[in-house]
């Protein structure tokens, strides 16, 4: 299908444009500033990861892109239109940390759900469902029910469901956070393959630095609350990335770079100054979340 590009963005072709976005939550008496003046543009076919400590607002940013919550200030433009309109046009596919499958529907029927909602008819629907199940290699499980599948398989079903409408942008909110490390690495390889096959743009929220580096064209590193973009790191590892990629020096160097940025030790970054002391201890230890 299409060739995904790790190329830098061009101003006209952006799939997502986030301009001066802030988000404030009213929490009883006080207000919580979740995000502060975020600017970010994402080009078609890019794979962008959002990484940062817990509570940095990365999930909120993802939800803002998907119009599941509204910004307090600024604007989110998707495919040249407001996020709300993009949602109504069904430009999104979404995958959560939990598979959120409907347990009364078979695998097939779960994948068919978005097509049903859109009103895609019988044969066309069946064809698309089969195609999606082929994409996640679950054709043999079409008639199974969610409880009969492992966690990893359930998550693949939810990816197939998210892709059923061939969305121009796929939002993934810590999709593999609940999986064990081995399954997670396998799923990462699979997501890369699916992304390359479909050419869809992916915004991917994660806690895991290796995961972010392995998958992404760019890693967006965020600061603790109020969430800001500390730095955007280009990942120039060649595609397709494999298990061997995980053992290259460049891979380790990039992981170190992301980790150091998360620690806030970049002297050339004005945002990080004076922030080191306020970082949670877990960050100083080098693990996130």
């Amino acid at each position, binding site marked *: 299908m299409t060739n995904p590009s790790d190329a830098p963005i061009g101003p006209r072709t952006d799939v997502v444009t986030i301009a001066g976005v802030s988000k404030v939550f009213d929490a009883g008496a006080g207000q919580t500033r979740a995000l502060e003046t975020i600017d970010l543009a994402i080009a078609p076919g890019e794979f962008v990861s959002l990484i940062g400590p817990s509570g940095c607002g990365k999930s909120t940013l993802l939800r803002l892109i*998907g119009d*599941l919550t509204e910004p307090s200030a600024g604007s989110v433009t998707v495919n040249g239109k407001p996020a709300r309109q993009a949602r*109504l046009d069904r430009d*999104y596919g979404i995958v959560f940390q939990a598979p*959120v499958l*409907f*347990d*009364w529907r078979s695998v097939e029927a779960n994948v068919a759900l978005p097509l049903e*909602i859109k009103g895609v008819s019988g044969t066309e629907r069946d064809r698309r469902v089969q195609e999606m199940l082929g994409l996640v290699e679950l054709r043999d499980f079409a008639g199974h029910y969610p409880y009969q599948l492992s966690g990893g398989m359930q998550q693949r079903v939810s990816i197939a469901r998210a892709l059923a409408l061939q969305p121009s942008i796929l939002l993934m909110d810590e999709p593999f956070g609940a999986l064990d490390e081995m399954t997670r690495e396998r799923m990462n390889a699979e997501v890369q393959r699916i992304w390359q096959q479909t050419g869809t743009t992916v915004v991917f929220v994660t806690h895991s630095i290796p995961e972010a580096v392995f998958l992404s064209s760019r890693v967006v590193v965020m600061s603790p609350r109020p969430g800001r973009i500390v730095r955007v790191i280009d990942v120039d590892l060649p595609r397709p990335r494999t298990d061997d990629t995980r053992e290259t020096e460049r891979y380790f160097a990039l992981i170190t770079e992301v980790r150091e940025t998360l620690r806030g030790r970049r002297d050339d970054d004005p945002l990080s100054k004076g922030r080191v002391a306020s970082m949670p201890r877990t960050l100083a230890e080098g693990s996130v979340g």
Partner: protein
Amino acid sequence: MILALAFFIALLVLWEGAKALGGDPWRFGDPAVGNEIVYTPPFQWQIASDLSLPHVWRIWEALAAPVQRQQEQSLAAFLVGAALYTGREAALGFFVGGFVGLGLAAVFVHSRLAERAFMPYVVASQTIPILALAPLIAFAFGNGVVGIVIVASYLTFFPVTIAQLRGLTSPDPRALELMRSCAASRWTIFWKLRMPASLPYLFAALKIAATASIVGAIVGEGNPGGSQFGLGRSILNFNEQYGSAPEKLWAAVLASSLLGIAFFLIVRTAEVFALRNRPGSVAA
């Protein structure tokens, strides 16, 4: 099922055991022929007397005997007819109450305002004793099926409303977000997510409603403006005859509980079928 049967037998043993310890003298045979055997229990308890607890075989015999002197129909046949009559009213009440409950829950889940305005009255409705309400309903709707069905549905809509509202709000917030991301309408979200998700809750309520509908129909029949037929009327009639034939009332009680069990099992079967692909959501 086997356990339930074993428990029933244990109950019969307990019943007769109480009578063996503190009941009236047991008499077998015929004094006229002279072969009568009398066993006198060691104690005398009012609760175990033949009037309070007739022997189970007396109830059994009464079922086979004519319902009244000069009538051919046996008590068993009479009670089956009464149970079918009451069962029909209860079933109507079950469906009317069930649909009212479903409708109220559907409105409440979409309108916090409606829920806050009407829910207190839904709850208050159940604090009025049905015994006080049944004659009023019978007075308003006459001696007929309509009034009785209303009493039965009055008892059934409540558990359905409460449980169904809980069921409709049970979906994972992310499932709702998923539907939103597909630009699903409220209508679509209701039918494709909320309703299917509510089924385990609905069936829990329907099992309560199944038995409550029979209580409602019996109370509806039994009140002064009620019905000429059915188990409720039979229970009142046999109550008047209790001094001479206590086993008839017990037989009517047995028929009522069997009808309740039948209703329960029908709902239970529907539940097992409807939730067959959802292990863990079917409760006993």
